[in-house]
């Protein structure tokens, strides 16, 4: 967070102070990110076959071109954007491709890396389109109700499709399948930001005036209850604990940031625990996840062999401090979902605690940069959107990483950028595109005042 202020020079020069754009920093970081990914790709080949993969140069060139195009889009259309966001996204996405490619070697009949590469390319393309087309994030405010309608439609759609592995969160059309919940979360963040920006006063006001007995008016409370119902509904109908948890967390954080009322967190947690308790005790799929978390080794003791969580913990433990080295672990023992929900176990086993911590810190940096943009922005919608998008990343990382390392009950969710999954990769590129736009607005110097030299009061009014 200090890096944003580090660039601003002393505030006294009389010509208009031009904050640095730092596009060169971004470019060199991108080069570094691509080099690290290619290095990982080569390391896998050397470890597994004793030879550099024949397409290593192609992989590097492809990743490089994508990164370069994204960089050009940012340089042209969002020159003041935070220089860390894009390199972090490229590094995580490239690392994810390496890990998936590495796991593909264990499952030659079920290769996921080529599809992931196509999805990553689509994600970057959408990123470029979003950065170029969306000139001002405030335009999104107008589409709040379209967003929420679309989000609800997307969320409900999978109910009409067959369940896959116990969860009804996929839409299948021919060969293609995607998880609408992934797109829905961005749309919901846009809606929340717009709605809360518009109704801040009412929410704050209502809860201040009215005591315990009386609730805020239905008009204000309605959407909140609706969101709660949607979250529980998703949980019940689609058995998707992760998405519910994410929506709840997202909503509570944004509500708190918008109103500053700690009471909303209490209400949110209360409602969340009520929903989670009901579903956790009624719904066997969710119930078994909680049981697994409480005793990951129950299956071993009862002779059924280690469950997925136990296998995941074995993988992390095998990595130890420095890891086994890329390509040399056995996280494939986890079985189903190694490349998606459990991709982090491969990172933990083959890169060790050191590598895993680096990955966590990358996410932490991404979140911190998003929140920094939120702090620097002036319009409430932009601030809330930045906080919302950052929170999506933070919560999602925590929920899935905490799940596979045994910190919290396991929920099926995709590690942003890292995990196999087209909808997830594309959505995360959209999130980064929005954060780029928001950080550009936040860091862009204000329009040059007409009267230069006059001691004008500071224009920014901090709420």
């Amino acid at each position: 967070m200090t890096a944003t202020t580090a660039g601003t020079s002393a505030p006294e020069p009389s010509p208009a102070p031009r904050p640095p754009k730092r596009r060169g920093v971004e470019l060199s970081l991108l080069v570094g990110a691509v080099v690290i990914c290619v290095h990982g790709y080569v390391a896998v080949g050397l470890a597994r076959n004793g030879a550099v993969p024949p397409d290593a140069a192609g992989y590097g060139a492809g990743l490089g071109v994508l990164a370069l195009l994204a960089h050009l889009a940012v340089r042209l259309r969002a020159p003041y954007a935070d220089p860390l966001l894009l390199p972090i996204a490229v590094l995580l996405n490239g690392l994810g491709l390496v890990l998936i490619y590495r796991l593909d070697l264990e499952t030659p009949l079920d290769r996921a890396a080529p599809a992931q590469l196509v999805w990553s390319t689509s994600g970057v393309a959408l990123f470029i389109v979003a950065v170029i087309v969306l000139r001002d994030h405030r335009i999104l405010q107008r589409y709040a109700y379209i967003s929420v309608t679309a989000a609800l439609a997307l969320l409900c759609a999978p109910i009409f499709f067959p369940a896959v592995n116990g969860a009804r969160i996929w839409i299948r059309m021919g060969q293609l399948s995607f998880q609408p919940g992934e797109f829905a979360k961005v749309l919901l963040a846009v809606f929340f930001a717009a709605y809360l920006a518009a109704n801040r006063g009412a929410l704050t006001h209502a809860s201040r005036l009215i005591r315990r007995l009386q609730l805020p008016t239905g008009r204000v409370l309605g959407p909140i209850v609706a969101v709660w119902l949607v979250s529980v509904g998703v949980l019940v109908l689609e058995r998707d604990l992760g998405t519910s948890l994410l929506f709840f967390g997202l909503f509570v954080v944004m509500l708190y940031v918008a109103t500053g009322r700690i009471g909303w967190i209490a209400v949110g947690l209360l409602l969340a625990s009520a929903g989670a308790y009901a579903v956790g005790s009624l719904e066997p799929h969710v119930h078994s996840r909680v049981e697994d978390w409480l005793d990951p080794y129950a299956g071993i003791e009862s002779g059924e062999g280690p469950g997925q969580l136990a296998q995941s913990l074995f993988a992390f433990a095998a990595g130890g401090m420095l890891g086994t080295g890329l390509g040399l672990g056995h996280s494939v023992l986890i079985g189903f979902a190694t490349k998606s929900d459990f991709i982090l176990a491969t990172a933990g086993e083959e890169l060790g605690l050191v590598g895993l911590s680096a990955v966590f810190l990358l996410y932490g940096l991404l979140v911190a940069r998003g929140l920094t943009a939120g702090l620097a922005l002036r319009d409430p919608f932009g601030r809330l959107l930045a906080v919302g998008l950052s929170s999506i990343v933070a919560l999602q990382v925590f929920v899935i990483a905490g799940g596979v390392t045994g910190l919290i009950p396991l929920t099926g969710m995709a590690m942003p950028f890292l995990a196999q999954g087209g909808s997830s990769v594309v959505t995360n590129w959209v999130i980064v595109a929005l954060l780029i736009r928001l950080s550009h607005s936040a860091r862009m110097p204000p329009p040059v005042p007409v009267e230069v030299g006059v001691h004008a009061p500071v224009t920014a009014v901090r709420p």
Partner: protein
Amino acid sequence: MTRCIRHAAVFSLLLLLALLANAARVQVLEASALENNPANRRAAIARYAEPRGDILVDGKPVTGSEDTGEQLRYERTYRDGPLYAPVTGYSSQTYDTSFVEHAQDPVLSGSDPLLAPFPLWGDLSRSRPSAGDVATTVKAAVQQAAYRGLAGRRGAVAAIEPSTGKILALVSSPSYDPQLLSGNGPEVSRAWARLNGADAQPMLNRAIRQTYPPGSAFKIVTAAAALESGVVDDVDAPTHTPEPFLLPGTRTPLPNATKGCEDASLAYAIQWSCNTVMANLGARVGLRNMVATARGFGFNDPGLGIPSGVTASNFDTDMSPDQLALSSIGQFNTTATPLQMAMVAAAVASGGDVRSPYLVERVTRANGDLLAQNGPRAYRQAMTPVTAQRLRELMVRAVEEGTGGNASIAGATVGGKTGTAQHGIDNSGLPYAWFIGWAQAYDAPRPAVALAVVVEDASAVREDISGGGSAAPVARAVMRAALWDS
């Protein structure tokens, strides 16, 4: 709102710290417990990821490793599996290891810290050194002669080099192919169940893990005790033994299988295997001296290892005089492994000293670097050299003019003692045929081999089972191989 965004940032930071702390817990604090969890297959995968080191006989591997391409990648293969099974044991992905495969497993599996040239670097890089090889003391020709000699009959042969303790042959018959147990599929479980359930007990290592009543072969121990304790001074003097000889304190007469044993000398008694004379001498030597002498040869030692554990041979330490008399001719509770009886013969051949028998000659890295070498080690002193010299002569006489005629070899001095051990309730079981002996080529400075052969052949006619008839020819073939094939 700024304050709240900062709170959100602090909240995110707390989530991050929780993740980092939890990852450190799993990957560092609980790592070793998780790695040692029996349900964690990684240890097994690592163990079988590289070809296993080889066990060598005469410098040539009798084992191999086959790349199966499965998760547990390399499986053990055996050349002449049944022949060498009592030496190598098995190395199974399902049933672990036995014998040399077990005793030298750290080297053969590559986990022995000695194998890593730079241990600290190995720990850091988590690299696993190539497995090492284990060279045995076994001589292929001797082993083959013994296996062929037994020809599938139940029995065992143990042959050692008396001056060093090197085990030249260790054969158990009938045998099995350890390769049947190498893998981890259902065939392996079936083979395991079949081998363990078979009447013939093919997986029993009769040479070191089965004890038999040694019968008359034990008379060498009794003779040593009689000479050492001074009960006999002149081997050719009469021993004042009546015939029939009543077991001390009882009215039970002890029979002889041969004639002319009345008042016979020790020499005659060894030559023709007189029960009465040796029982009488044992009783006169007394329990304490008999136990001490038996112990000197290695009886009653549960700690003997080659390096695999050898079942302790037994000579009771608390017996009535009649029991002692019976024990002195290798009956009652006296039992011995074939290896133990080979050590008795070796003690005579090597002038009274017993060397620790050993099966592993050298341990090397894959590239041949020497890691460990075994050599002769003193084990016990069974008797004085003078006694040993007198016993040598008695044993030579037993072969040249007595019961062991079938073991004589042209061009070599052979000493031996036959035995036909009765067992079972009222001696109803089929007797075991024994031969223990040693051989020295005329031009050699010392005996090249000492051995024990036991044949428990249920299919043979009872009268044919005798040390001289069944066991001596096997011994002859083995000794001949040891004398000139090495």
